[in-house]
């Protein structure tokens, strides 16, 4: 039957041949569509006289950004403007994640309270946040801030040199210099060192069973680098005092109402999800674990820390990761209330230069890269706490 096996029609019925065929067709289809789109787009852009490429990033931006952590003015380049936007995105996301984790933990435990009043209140909190769109809450918080606080001209002076108005909270700030950045880096280094030292001591204790006093060494690791940095860099302690003018307050550190509304909105909405996650995690640890821990003589706090939480974390971490990721992605709603995040700055850039494809490509790639990084970090952590099975 060798002849019929090699005939082309017969070949079509071979599963392996078909598999290859399907894949070739699929890839060809994707590549074909891609090429077609690329061709159409470049033809249209040429017809509309729109420049392509990323040269525009080095041209001056010409617009101001209301909040920035690195020095920026309208004479700086588009590239720097986008960097400012990215830093603003990260800034608000980090704070929102911290707020949502703390609130979520508290509310999640409150949901499990034996006190019916407390657990019902926690349930109402969760339901009220989960059943209304985040964007609506952002608008609502923003409207509330503007409605409740006085206009800038009648700003409340709650402390000397601290002003509160619907233009935001304004506090005195340090005049930032590279020396301060050096000290900040040293503080971070100190924290990392302290963690390393603490974990080394713990490993030694687990390995040898001998418990040594660790805290002086940890403290030393924490304090020495910042102190050294202070001596080396000698940062200048100049304060940037806010000055109240007729219509606006200049100087100082300004916490804008846009930032506050976004922070509150993101933090609260994520906390509802985290509360449910925490509750499910704690419930997933069986009663027997509590009883067993008690029978080997652990008291309540030890049981929670050594027995229940490590097991609950396994259930909690994966949904917590996706919650953090969606907080980070939801910060893009900033554009709706005018907080200058990555998307909003890119949008302004796109409107001015007309280079929409490049602008969208930049912020999509940034989001994609950050999402992948965060999920890889959390996966690594998850692998560490995961149950090691035979």
């Amino acid at each position: 039957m060798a002849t019929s096996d090699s005939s082309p029609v017969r070949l079509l019925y071979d599963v392996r041949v078909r598999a290859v065929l399907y894949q070739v067709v699929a890839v060809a289809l994707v590549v074909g569509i891609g090429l077609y789109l690329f061709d159409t787009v470049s033809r249209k852009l040429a017809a509309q006289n729109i420049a392509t490429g990323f040269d525009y990033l080095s041209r001056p931006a010409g617009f101001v950004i209301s909040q920035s952590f690195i020095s920026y003015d309208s004479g700086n380049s588009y590239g720097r403007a986008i960097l400012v936007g990215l830093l603003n995105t990260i800034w608000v996301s980090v704070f929102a994640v911290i707020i949502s984790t703390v609130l979520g933990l508290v509310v999640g435990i409150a949901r499990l309270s034996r006190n019916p009043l407390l657990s019902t209140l926690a349930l109402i909190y969760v339901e009220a946040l989960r059943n209304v769109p985040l964007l609506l809450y952002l608008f609502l918080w923003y409207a509330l801030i503007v409605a409740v606080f006085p206009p800038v001209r009648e700003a409340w002076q709650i402390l000397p040199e601290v002003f509160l108005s619907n233009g935001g909270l304004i506090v005195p700030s340090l005049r930032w210099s590279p020396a301060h950045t050096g000290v900040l880096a040293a503080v971070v280094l100190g924290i990392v060192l302290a963690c390393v030292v603490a974990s080394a001591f713990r490993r030694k204790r687990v390995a040898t069973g001998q418990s040594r006093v660790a805290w002086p060494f940890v403290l030393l690791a924490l304090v020495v680098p910042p102190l050294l940095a202070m001596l080396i860099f000698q940062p200048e302690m100049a304060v940037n005092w806010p000055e109240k003018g007729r219509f606006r307050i200049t100087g100082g550190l300004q916490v804008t109402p846009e930032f506050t509304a976004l922070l509150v909105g993101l933090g609260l909405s994520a906390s509802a999800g985290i509360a449910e996650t925490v509750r499910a995690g704690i419930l997933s640890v069986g009663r027997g674990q509590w009883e067993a821990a008690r029978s080997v003589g652990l008291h309540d706090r030890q049981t929670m820390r050594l027995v229940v939480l490590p097991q609950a974390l396994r259930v909690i971490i994966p949904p917590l990761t996706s919650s953090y990721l969606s907080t980070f992605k939801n910060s893009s709603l900033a554009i709706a209330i005018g907080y200058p995040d990555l998307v909003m700055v890119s949008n302004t850039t796109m409107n001015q230069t007309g280079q929409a494809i490049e602008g969208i490509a930049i912020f999509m790639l940034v989001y994609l890269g950050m999402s992948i990084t965060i999920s890889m970090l959390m996966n690594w952590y998850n692998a560490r706490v995961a149950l090691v099975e035979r």
Partner: protein
Amino acid sequence: MTDTAQLNTLASVSDERPVRPAQNWFGLLKPYIGSPFNAVVTFACLWLIYRLITGAWGWLVTRAIVEGGPQTCKAAAGAGACWPFLAAKLRFMIFGFFPYDEHWRPALAVLLFLGAMIYSMIPRFWSRRLLWLWLAVVVICGVLMYGGVFGLRVVNTTNWGGLPLSFMLSSVGLAFGFVLGVLLALARSSKLPAIQVIAIVFIEMVRGVPLVSILFMASVMLPLFMPDGVTIDKLLRAQVAIIIFAGAYIAETVRGGLQAVPKGQHEAAASLGLGYWLSMRKIVLPQALKIVIPPLVNIFIGFFQDTTLVTIIGLLDFLDTVRSAMRDPVWQGIAVLEGYIFAALVYAVFSYGMGSYSRFIERRLKTDHSHGRH
């Protein structure tokens, strides 16, 4: 059996009952003031509830302005809710810029849609007939909204807005997103590496970026992708973005269901001589989809809320018409919260309803699996 014997059995039964916690005052109050800490918690909660209720009651009822116009509300300076604002702007908030005389058309469409929705949520009516029902509903709603036949005035999509638009964007987005999602899930669990890679790249790319960016991409880049002379409606662009986004998320949920179907089911289907598509359609997918109905309903709730994002690219969905109503020069700066609270209530009612349905269906599907075990 004599009467006494019966009484004895009854007595012994009642003796065997577990001892219930003391039903006196202290027993009832124990969860509230069992320990000093608990007592503090209880009083803090009571205080919070008291403040919430009196605050809401005062704002909504006692201090509210019930009659009058913008000036009456302005004089009250936001001390209470401004009901005249809601009364004056209600129809605009719900129907947007749809011609005023024709409001009965979107109203009828919404009622039809909700009716069909509730009908198809009842498990007893689940059958192939539902597909035809929905086809009819979609056609009738389309005719009602767009017009052009039976002497109905043509209303362009640029004039569509409000609640009907929100319902449309989310339901059409989810219907097509579901089909896309199932196809993507099948592709991702396929044994053919090239197809698997294409699906993974697509799903992860869409899930890695925010919906806002996909909406931007659709509204700015889709027109560039079209051949010369073809324009694409703004509404359609947003719809495409929502379908893509929903598809990627639904794909991951459905994939979870596909993984939960035991391998033996695939093998059994193959041994009966069913090909890939037939075994998927008849054996694997029905089981996989049944497992993922509850998470799917949760995705639907999320997407119903996420359609509010289309306001960022300038579509007049419900949230946007509410905001436009509040920006009306006559009312600007007067009713700054009322609109949002009304909109929040509308969203909460629908989301909560669907959430309750999700819990109901979860319970029901569970009992289906455990016949005879109780």
